[in-house]
């Protein structure tokens, strides 16, 4: 009777009255209606912005792997891989995919310019670096239109000033 479990705390149920007993009964009832995992899950009804009709043999829903962080972490940094990152970033907007692609691009030293909505990567160490900006040659991923058509490609911009207040 010198410590926690013992008679040094007088019995409570006798003295607690209706509310504790009532609460326990309600808790018992709630116990049989525990929230289920599916009560928190939301169907990921992915609605393509510009749905294209494809043959039924094509996958009609997104492969789950595109929402798996490990997939994006292992994608690599060769041109094809980087293009996939840019594809996810620009064409799967407001999805977990876009979030993961942006995170991976940053890991590969790309930086998002909020004014040009374009990702830049230092081609060489910048010639000038101040608190407000850096200037030098950068690779950037851009959509360009020329007489022989249009498309995405990586280009080099020399003598570019990246002002840090545009850095996301």
């Amino acid at each position, binding site marked *: 009777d010198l410590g926690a479990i013992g008679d040094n705390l007088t019995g409570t149920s006798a003295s607690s009255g209706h509310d504790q007993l009532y609460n326990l009964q309600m808790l018992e009832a709630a116990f049989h209606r*525990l*929230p289920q*995992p599916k009560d*928190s*899950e*939301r169907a*990921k009804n992915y609605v393509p912005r510009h749905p294209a009709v494809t043959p039924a043999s094509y996958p009609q829903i997104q492969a789950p792997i595109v*929402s798996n962080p490990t997939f994006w972490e292992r994608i690599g940094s060769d041109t094809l891989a980087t293009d996939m990152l840019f594809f996810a*970033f620009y064409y799967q*907007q*407001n999805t*977990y995919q*876009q*979030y993961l692609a*942006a995170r991976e691009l940053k890991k590969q030293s790309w930086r*998002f310019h*909020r004014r040009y*909505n374009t990702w830049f990567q230092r081609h060489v160490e910048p010639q000038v670096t101040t608190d407000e900006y850096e200037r030098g040659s950068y690779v950037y991923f851009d959509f360009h239109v020329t007489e022989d058509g249009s498309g995405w490609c990586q280009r080099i911009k020399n003598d570019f000033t990246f002002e840090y207040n545009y850095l*996301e």
Partner: protein
Amino acid sequence: LGIDLTTLGLNLNSPDNLYKTFGSPWSNEPAKGDPDFHIPACYF
């Protein structure tokens, strides 16, 4: 004597925050579905 708290399904030595995958107080399973993520408005 309490419970062995390592049996509650939480990796207490994890270097990452546990809340990101905390599924529910009633289960040992980590959360399913996309963990919480925030996309800056300038990405749209």
